[in-house]
């Protein structure tokens, strides 16, 4: 017996070691794969042994890179800075436009009692390592439980989602990428609103499953998170549709090109805190274009009212535009805040030449230079400018006090037409001076006596002004007040 054991000792030990590993593997698979806590100790040891090296290398690499980029390689930085500043200007303008849309959406959500999810806190982390295997799409980041990370938190970049936190150690966390075959993300197609499940494949691709084959999914369509997985907030970019083919069981096989570069991640954000709250209408309505633009444009000293009255209609129009664009109430609209009317811009020597062309307004920037200036003072003077500012919609609200309010929202609601001197719809007379501009009807909002219970929108084309004078001019009010005119 001893001789047999001695002769086959190596083989017996091999079988024993293999048997133990197979047994352990079977137990793990039965208990739910690698996500269970029964292998946590071994993983902690390994991560504790490997990640200090990774952190050190990343630290040295970052230090050297910072020294090089911040002190030596500064070529083209000025040009880049200038470009970025211009980009910021563009984006601020765009932000204002979007904030209007967001405010409207918020009001609608309030009406529908929507609950919103907000990303209230994120933690930036650096990728320090990976699993090193093609079959397990795992990365390690240099933040862990000490930084407030927990399991199942979403990990994103500015481009799109990356994955979720799988295991959390004290100073390191393991992140499962969305192209791992064990991952799953609720996703929705942006335009068609078809929902599916995003999964990784063995080859590291990302596919959208559970979309019926009779649906039309165009290549290039954007895919967003649906929020159904309770990990990623709704609406985060996932990627774009790269290929669509018929799959198994009446479902489409949709390959997705991930928005984030999953192969070369360096920094990521971990969403450590989400808030869910009832939508409220007051969140964003006070962010106005006029306020932002007023900070950027130079101010013009106050002028006596007589000067304005004696001047051309453009000056009055400018003041009118200011009050209209800034959507101030009648009692607060004074020329004191830096006027953003187009007539004021050319007067300033300090005005930046780069800021004005960014304003995508249809009106000519300088009212005085406009050909319509000659006819300033008439209600139709401002018509071309208003008309070319591309109204995108109108909202008609019937009110109990038999007034019909028509809100015309232009694409650039914050830029007032330069040569509007009266309400083109109602034909109200222009104000005598800037101080009276508060009483001037705004370009986008007009009131007229209701004509019965009809809810048809009042024609707002400025080129067809009515001759009825308005007896009750109004200014653009905050959206919450639109249903309650004076």
């Amino acid at each position, binding site marked *: 017996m001893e001789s047999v054991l001695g002769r086959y*000792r*190596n083989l017996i*030990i*091999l079988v024993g*070691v*293999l048997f133990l*590993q*197979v047994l*352990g*593997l*079977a137990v*793990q*698979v039965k208990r739910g*794969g*690698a996500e269970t806590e029964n*292998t946590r100790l*071994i*993983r902690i*040891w*390994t*991560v504790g*042994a*490997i990640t200090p*090296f*990774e952190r050190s*290398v990343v630290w040295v690499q970052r230090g050297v890179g910072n020294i090089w980029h911040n002190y030596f390689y500064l070529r083209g930085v000025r040009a880049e800075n200038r470009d970025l500043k211009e980009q910021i200007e563009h984006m601020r303008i765009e932000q204002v436009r979007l904030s209007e849309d967001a405010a409207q959406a918020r009001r609608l959500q309030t009406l529908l009692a929507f609950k919103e999810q907000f990303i209230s806190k994120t933690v930036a982390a650096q*990728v*320090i*390592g*990976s*699993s*090193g*295997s*093609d*079959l*397990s*799409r*795992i*990365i*390690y980041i240099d933040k862990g439980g000490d930084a407030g990370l927990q399991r199942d938190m979403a990990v994103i970049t500015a481009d799109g989602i990356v994955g979720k936190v*799988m295991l959390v150690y004290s100073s390191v966390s*393991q992140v*499962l990428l969305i192209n*791992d*075959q*064990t991952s799953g993300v609720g996703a929705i197609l942006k335009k068609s609103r078809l929902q599916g499940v995003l999964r990784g*494949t*063995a*080859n590291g691709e990302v596919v959208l499953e559970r979309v019926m084959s009779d649906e039309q999914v165009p290549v290039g369509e954007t895919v967003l998170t649906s929020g159904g997985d309770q990990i990623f907030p709704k609406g985060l970019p996932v990627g774009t549709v790269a290929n669509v083919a018929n799959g198994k069981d009446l479902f489409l096989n949709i390959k997705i090109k991930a928005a984030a570069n999953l*192969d*070369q*991640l360096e920094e990521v954000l971990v969403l450590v805190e989400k808030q869910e709250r009832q939508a409220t209408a007051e969140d964003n309505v006070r962010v106005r274009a006029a306020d932002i633009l007023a900070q950027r444009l130079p101010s013009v000293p106050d002028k006596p009212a007589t000067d304005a009255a004696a001047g051309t209609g453009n000056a009055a129009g400018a003041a009118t535009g200011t009050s209209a664009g800034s959507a101030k109430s009648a009692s607060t609209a004074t020329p004191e805040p830096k006027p953003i009317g187009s007539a004021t811009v050319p007067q300033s020597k300090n005005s930046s030449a780069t800021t004005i062309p960014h304003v995508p307004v249809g009106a000519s920037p300088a009212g005085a230079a406009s050909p319509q200036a000659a006819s300033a003072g008439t209600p139709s003077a401002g018509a071309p400018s208003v008309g070319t500012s591309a109204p995108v919609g109108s909202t008609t609200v019937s009110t109990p006090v038999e007034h019909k309010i028509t809100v015309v929202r232009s694409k650039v609601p914050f830029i007032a037409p330069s040569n509007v001197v009266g309400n083109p719809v109602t034909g109200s007379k222009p104000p005598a001076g800037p101080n009276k501009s508060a009483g001037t009807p705004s370009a986008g909002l007009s009131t007229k006596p209701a004509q019965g219970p009809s809810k048809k929108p009042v024609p707002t084309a400025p080129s067809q002004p009515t001759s009825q004078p308005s007896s009750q001019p109004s200014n653009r009010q905050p959206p919450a007040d639109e249903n309650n005119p004076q």
Partner: protein
Amino acid sequence: MPVTYTSGEQVEVYRFSIPATVGFPLLALFLQAFVPRRFPLFSYLDLPLLVTIFFAMARRNPISGLLTGAVIGLVQDSLGGLPLGLYGIAKTVVGFGASSLGVKLDVENAGARLLVTLGFYLVHAAVYFTVARGLASLTLNWSWSRGFLAGLANAVLGVVIYFFLDKFKQRT
């Protein structure tokens, strides 16, 4: 004395210092985890496998070889998100096979090392895929061309690494 196919001399059995025994596997695991983030093609290489083969062939002790393979494989498993044991089983088999082969063959020259490494890479892949599919129910795609090319790349790199690691051998 084991029967060998060498030129009559008894094959050399080597040992390694503790820092080398611990340090090189750790270094291999670190590079395997760190480099693919910067160079994705690096993930085709399997440095822990190369280290396992080298130590097993140099020590020429099957038990030592299989234990080395098991430990390195389990550590590699624990860096990934899959159940522990996939790499562990595959590298255990490779460690045992490499040390058993080292007892019988002279694997000191580059050509032999290239072929042995290529062969063990394919064995490792076969065992891994079998276990992953059969026990862990993972969906894996096997491509012969890709597997062979990856094996060749590993073998070439292995020859280079083995010559470097030869400097740390100590005669028993």
